[in-house]
């Protein structure tokens, strides 16, 4: 909901994303905060933000596929692996420039998107989930074969990306690079939502027959959703490879795919802001739990037994969000925002006289 008092006189003004003075100031403050953060925060915090930003790129890409187009995918880790291994393969063969690796990852991702997208035309819901899960295993198998073939059973090391004399190295540089990548992906996602293709995807999600009746080529747009999502995801995978400086199949297990699903559900399905919030939540949760366990100062081996809690916490939180807050973190954010927008005249639900 938008507060009263802002009267727009053109459709262009109504389409603007940052449309009020308060929003402009908030955005400026956020940009300023992100720019000066390296001056005040510790490298550990910066690395956490960078990891969150990288996760946000992947989550935003998955959100386009699942949240907008309504196509569930358990193959997300597979697409990330494809991007990471494309980079690894190129680097092994002497093509070190990110100007080659990133587009190549996007192309490989897009091609995989077509491979999955076409059978996905005949699959829905759980069957689609299983189909994409199959893709995950096929891609990981192929990656494992490559990894063994290179003779490096543990993985492939990737040197930092370099553009001429300029080398992307160090926590601060990576913080800026990944935050910028996340901001660009966010802008793309938000724009898609208010334009023709994004609307067509949401139409397919809501009602396929009606989407056809307004002239949307449903098959084409479903495949497009897979292509777009997996291309961006593969780019995220390439960034992951550069950031970690190392590629190994172990990093792309099924649990990673579940984490990404968790991000968009906990964040709020279909919302770009939700994907970012969910990415932050899922990335930071293990660290917060670690800090809490450390803070308890348990004697001896007790902390050791608390370790599995981290994995249990995901399942528990997913269930809690699905039950109590199906709109996710973004739903909570909307309620808080509305509370302030309506204050002090907020609406109180009627209570019975008893």
């Amino acid at each position, binding site marked *: 909901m938008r507060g009263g008092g802002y009267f727009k006189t*053109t*459709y*262009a003004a*109504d*389409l603007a994303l940052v449309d009020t003075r308060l929003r402009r100031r908030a955005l400026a403050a956020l940009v300023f905060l992100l720019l000066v953060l390296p001056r005040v925060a510790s490298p550990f915090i910066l690395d956490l933000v960078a990891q969150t930003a990288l996760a946000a790129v992947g989550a935003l890409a998955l959100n386009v596929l699942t949240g907008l187009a309504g196509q569930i995918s358990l193959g997300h880790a597979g697409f990330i692996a494809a991007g990471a291994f494309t980079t690894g393969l190129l680097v092994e063969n002497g093509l070190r420039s990110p100007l080659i690796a990133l587009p190549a990852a996007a192309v490989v991702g897009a091609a995989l998107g077509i491979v999955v997208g076409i059978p996905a035309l005949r699959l829905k819901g759980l069957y689609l989930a299983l189909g994409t899960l199959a893709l995950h295993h096929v891609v990981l198998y192929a990656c494992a074969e490559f990894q063994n073939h290179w003779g490096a059973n543990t993985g492939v090391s990737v040197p930092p990306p370099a553009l001429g004399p300029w080398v992307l190295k160090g926590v601060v540089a990576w913080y800026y690079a990944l935050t910028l990548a996340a901001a660009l992906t966010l*802008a*793309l*996602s938000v*724009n*898609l939502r*208010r*334009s*023709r*293709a*994004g*609307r*067509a995807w*949401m*139409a397919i*999600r*809501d*009602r396929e*027959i*009606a*989407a*056809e*009746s*307004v*002239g*949307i*080529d*449903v098959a084409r747009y479903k495949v*497009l959703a897979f292509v*777009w999502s997996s291309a961006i995801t593969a780019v995220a995978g390439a960034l992951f490879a550069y950031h970690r400086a190392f590629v190994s199949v172990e990093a792309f297990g099924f649990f990673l795919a579940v984490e990404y699903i968790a991000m968009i559900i906990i964040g709020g399905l*279909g919302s770009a802001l939700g994907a970012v919030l969910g990415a932050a939540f899922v990335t930071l949760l293990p660290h917060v739990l670690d800090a809490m366990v450390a803070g308890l100062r348990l004697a001896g081996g007790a902390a050791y037994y608390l370790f599995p809690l981290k994995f249990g916490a995901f399942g528990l939180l997913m269930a809690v969000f699905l039950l109590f807050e199906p709109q996710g973190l973004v739903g909570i954010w909307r309620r808080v925002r509305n509370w302030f927008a309506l204050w002090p005249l907020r609406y109180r639900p009627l209570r019975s006289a008893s």
Partner: protein
Amino acid sequence: MVLTIEGLTLEFEGLHPLTGVSMSVDDGALAALVGPNGAGKTCVLNCVGGFYTPKAGRIRFGDAMIQGLAPYQIAARGIARTFQFVELFRGMSVLDNILLGRHRHMRSGVLAGGIFWGRSRREETLHRRRAEEIIEFLELERHRTELIATLPFGVQKLVAIGRALAMEPTLLLLDEPSTGMNREEKENLARFLLRIKHELRTTMLWVEHDMELVGDLADTVTVLDFGRKIAEGPPAEVLRDPLVAEAYLGRAYARERGAG
């Protein structure tokens, strides 16, 4: 003739919803298609819209044969439709639903939409204006940004008509638009149908159960019964046809009335 149907026959595993139905709709006409439940009215619309593939028969739209085309191809040629149970995009706003009707008139793809600069932005503004005109035409202004799922059924029916009108169709297929509407909403609907006919000059093929509305508004009426055409012509004639009365009310009543 905007639409000509010849010998349309539909078969589903031994069922024959339509047998040799022929009919045509004049340019600019409001043509009603009526019949008792299960007569095959919606089947005719589904064949014209491409949702069903007829076993035999030809459907001519303008100069082209359209039987066998996919629904989105038929929509792209300028046939829009509404559904009996609205089939709107429930998770989206009224405005977005109507903007989706503009889909076939817009061009920007995924990348242009993602970047949202220059041409794709101008296109969005331009079609937003067209969508607003439809919203004004159907008096939906106060519902503009509301989610479909929160709207009463009668309003949803109007939004569905708005989505179809936003396509600027040559032929508009309406599947029981008055179902689920109260008296006042039906009177509004009648007003809108007349405005669509006289101001937008859109040809309409209109499946309807409310005979009062049909009698008052339709230019021609085609009556189906058990998948066959039993009468057609101007409403005043057709609705007095003993065969039609029999189809609706049974033989005894028709005989009695015929005798009296």
